[in-house]
């Protein structure tokens, strides 16, 4: 590496693949922040050579060559079973399934629910940006009431389309002792990293299923500027999607 390059390189986690940076997510997208916290978590836990990273379809697939960890890009909604299959065959590996809200709460909901029920020793990370970003901003299971998307042009009407999915609340309700469930936000990265580390550590310790939802942003499809983007993440989404830990092994549940 030349001196000039070193001077220009921003600080990035050791386990990131520098050759695929800058990454391909839109400016202002929360994926990059979530993946940075995940990278730091992997570095701090010193598990780079044991992690298998699986990514879903949708914007999350842009992370397929993001890390210097063995990675597999799967089908829409099917990352959880692929990682489950790997983990069942080789329990010494650490399986991370990375997906969006469509992959986890809609097309792959049965896999999330049943992995949680079986207490699969894998870690699922789900990015909630209230819409289907890759296909151009349609309604997702997490779209807020009244929110305009390409398939709810007059705003999401809960009478017609139901209320946003509360994923961690659902997973916490069906998961048993040993599971770790939390919701973090790109608005609080230190806390998000703490949750991600605990979620991975929980798998390393062999306790059970770990699930972290990340409240994230999508300025491209929200058609918001920086100020409005942060306002939507920190106010509108925060009001509906409560940040915190929902299930911690060996601990009384806290909100």
């Amino acid at each position, binding site marked *: 590496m030349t001196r000039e390059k070193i001077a220009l390189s921003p600080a990035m986690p050791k386990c990131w*693949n520098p050759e695929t940076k800058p990454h391909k997510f839109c400016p202002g997208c929360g994926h990059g922040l979530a993946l940075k916290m995940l990278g730091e978590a992997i570095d701090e836990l010193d598990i*780079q*050579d*044991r992690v*298998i990273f699986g990514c879903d*379809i949708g914007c999350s*697939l842009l992370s*397929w*060559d993001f*890390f*210097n*960890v*063995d*990675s*597999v*890009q*799967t*089908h829409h909604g*099917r990352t959880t*079973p*692929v*990682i*489950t*299959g*790997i*983990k*069942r*065959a*080789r329990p010494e*590996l650490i399986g991370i399934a990375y997906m969006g809200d469509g992959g986890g709460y809609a097309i792959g909901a*049965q*896999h999330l*629910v*049943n992995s949680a029920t079986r207490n699969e020793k894998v870690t699922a990370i789900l990015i909630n940006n209230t819409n289907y970003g890759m296909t151009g901003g349609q309604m997702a299971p997490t779209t807020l009431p009244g929110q305009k998307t390409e398939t709810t042009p007059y705003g999401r009407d809960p009478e017609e389309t139901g209320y946003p999915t509360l994923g961690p609340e659902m997973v916490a309700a069906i998961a048993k002792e040993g599971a770790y469930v939390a919701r973090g936000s790109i608005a609080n990265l230190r806390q998000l990293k703490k949750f991600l580390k605990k979620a991975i550590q929980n798998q390393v310790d062999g306790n059970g299923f770990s699930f972290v939802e990340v409240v994230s942003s999508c300025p491209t499809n929200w058609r918001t500027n920086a100020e409005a983007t942060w306002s939507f993440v920190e106010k509108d989404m925060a009001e509906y999607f409560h940040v915190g830990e929902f299930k911690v092994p060996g601990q009384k549940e806290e909100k």
Partner: protein
Amino acid sequence: MSEKPVTGERRVFMTGNEVCAWAALAAEADIMYGYPITPQTDIMQYWTRLAPKFGRKFLQTEDEISAGFTTIGGVLAGKRAFSATTGPGNVLFQEPMSMAEMMRIPTVVIIPQRGGPSTATVIYSQQEVTMTAFGGNGEGFRIVYSTAGHQDLYDYTIKAFNTAWKYRFPTFVLGDGYQAKMREPLTIYDPAQRGIQMVKTEPLVGLEGTPGRDRPTQYLRNTYNTEEELYEVVMEIARDFEKAAPEIVEWQDFDTDKEMDVLILAHGVVSRSAQGALPLLREQGIRAGHFRPITLRPMPEEQMRRAAAKAKRILVVESAYGQLLKLVQQSLYGLAKPIDTLLRPGAGVTAEEIADQVKEGR
């Protein structure tokens, strides 16, 4: 590690599903993932009873989509992983199998066909030929063995693992509900004692060393950005498939060395009825032969054409409404031979019925 499940050779009397479980054990399969559906479920039931005794694993998934994708996961981790399904379960399997096709993941799936379309019957058919060979949103780069009985089930289940891992295409053992539920005598054996070496498996993720430092990182994908990029990928798979096809194709022929009045084309258990029809026809002075493709994908086209060239006409017999027929027409294109059919979707066919059809069709 536990002792070998099958040592030496042993004469047994078993259902086809039990045979498949024993064959997977003998083939050193590490893990089965599956979801119950009749008439496949007993494979799982035998496996779950036998596997723990030999240090093998099992996962019952939430549906067949998950069974297929977890099987893929097991293979990616470097294990000899398999599943079994049928009918509507086979429909759901097409999604994961299209991924296996694109990414050259050597999955093995055993399919005792049941009636279709839809839920249909839990009993028997040959209606999953098209789906097993060509399902998914692609070209059908898969290997399909059609078994005719219990010895076949044992032999080809073992072989399926080796073919899959040698050529890296998803491989299927296509049986049917009759074979699954019926008992037959057969010989089970330790493959090693017959000189059958199990092809070594290797992990596609979770390799030794730190990725990016000690070795290149494994990046596996099935998504491509441009038409040109995808075209190159698919054409490479096509070339590999076509190159491997002559080594993979298998067939049997009966009385096809001379000129024939009729060549009976049938696969799977129906082939046994066709074999039974030959002496009945001979008694009546009809010169009949029979050709049985064992691999339906790739199809032994050349061998079938050679046999067909010696016959005045062809009779295609199957427990489906024209699925084998389509493959035969494709294989024999350009050969000017009349094709008669006996198509019985979801129903069995006897030797007498085939002999009658031959006489009727004259």
